[in-house]
């Protein structure tokens, strides 16, 4: 599988990273180099192998249903680039 410039532009859009034409051209080569290299994984016989789910044997712990957090509005908003009263502000979204 190899990517062309359209694909690179599509991936950039999906990633929400603006990309110039020149950057896209450069990225085509880089991504193809990396992808061609990782494709050697296809050689590995993985018959009957389950994909890894937990790196180290461990069980998911579940939390009790109690309110232990929240009510920290000032902390939550402290670093906001555009704080509007108690809200985060973003460019107007038309739904």
């Amino acid at each position, binding site marked *: *599988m190899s*990517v062309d410039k359209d*694909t*690179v532009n599509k*991936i*950039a*859009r*999906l*990633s*929400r*990273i*603006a*990309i110039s034409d020149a950057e896209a051209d450069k*990225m085509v080569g*880089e*991504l193809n*180099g*990396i*992808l061609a*290299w*990782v*494709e*050697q*994984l*296809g050689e*590995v016989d*993985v018959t009957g*192998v*389950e*994909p*890894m*789910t*937990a*790196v*180290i*044997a*461990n069980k*998911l*712990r579940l*939390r009790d249903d109690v309110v232990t957090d929240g009510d*920290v509005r000032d*902390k*939550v908003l*402290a*670093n*906001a*680039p*555009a704080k509007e009263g108690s809200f*985060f502000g*973003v*460019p*107007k*979204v*038309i739904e």
Partner: protein
Amino acid sequence: MTELTKLGVAAIRDGVASGAFTAVEVATAFNSNVAKAKALNAFIVETPEKAIEAAQAVDADRAAGKPLGKMAGVPIGMKDLFCTQGVQTTAASHILEGFVPTYESTVSAKLWKAGAGMLGKLNMDQFAMGSSNETSYFGNVISPWRRNDGSNAALAPGGSSGGSSSAIAARLCPAATGTDTGGSIRQPAAFVGISGIKPTYGRCSRWGVVAFASSLDQAGPMARDVRDCAIMLEAMAGFDPKDSTSLDLPVPTWEAGLNRDLKGKRIGIPKEYRLDGIDEDIAKMWDNGIAWLKDAGAEIVDISLPHTQYALPAYYIIAPAEASSNLARYDGVRFGLRDLPEGAGLQDMYAATRAAGFGEEVRRRIMIGTYVLSAGFYDAYYTQAQKVRALIARDFENAWASCDLILAPTAPSAAFGLGEKNADPLSMYLNDVFAVPASLAGLPAMSVPGGLSKDGLPLGLQIIGKALDEQAVLNAGLAIEQRSGFTAEAGEWW
């Protein structure tokens, strides 16, 4: 007070406890070294006042006869991946420039509780993506080491914990935190002739550590010797209910358990790590390491880890995939950089912010990760990589039938020059070839100095252990340390 900065963690802790010197004296000495070493660019933020404050508290506790913590009086450097309350935390990225967390990571909080103080936030590869510390928005970190050929070429301190390795090697701090996703503690430690251990995945909480690849990220200590690593790891590790992947196990007393006698231990030498065209210096160092461990009483056995060659490509699917999702939160809405071009809508703001905020390598990895997870490619790339990862873990499981530890080089070469590997991302990635398998399997792994290259640069030996068996890893590290006679230091030029 220059001699204080020659001391390591254990010596400082013991000296402060015995009253040989005060914690404030130690902090002052290291603050002064930090201030003089701007040329290394190891710190993004210096916090001398924090170091002094913590030292004063330790001195006061000692005066009041209160019990002192494991790291009492030890000033350390904090990798800028750890969120520190009230102190800018950036992951060395423009996108987080100016971000001041309102919270403290679990690991850093544990260290402060143990009596350590913060000298500053250490430079690193941006979002921990890199092997040379050249991806930081805040500039390259320079290794204190130089080749013995008289050239003054600036060398890479390794990455991603390059600020940590450089600062320790230059005696700006006796120890520092690192994080290791695919070698980011071990490779920089090897490049500057210090020690560093990545514990078993789940030992150190990831809570409050800026995420790169969640299933691989693991914090660990970097210090001058094995004992110092053991002490600091004890202070960093421990169960954290706020991290679902944290191991609910007591923290072993690794320092007390240190034992350089390896009688009865079997050391596996994986044949797949002996690559065609292996660097001569590396091969020689590895042979020396084998001899030292034999001398320490260990039995040497040949082992096979058949899927080794697939570890790196699997890693370069899994890590970018996780990163592409983990880094989606940097969108200019709640914190960090916002780039809002005139008239831009929400989605344009995202794209502009992320293009301006992420460095080139970060953008590249997000794009790779996005691609391998995208519709139609997920199974071919991601699922296949996770299956191969399971096989790599199985390789280690099988190896443990015939050995207790594995000895290998940490990196395929000594430190390279800054800029030498920038042209092709792949050649940079290949530097992690020996480090990545243990990361994929979540196993504890350590790098200790193994000698010098022909160019007079440090080389690292890597010890990989069974899950949860950090003690055996540390013990083998100690055995090597005591036989290698590694005392070389970078001459001060900065």
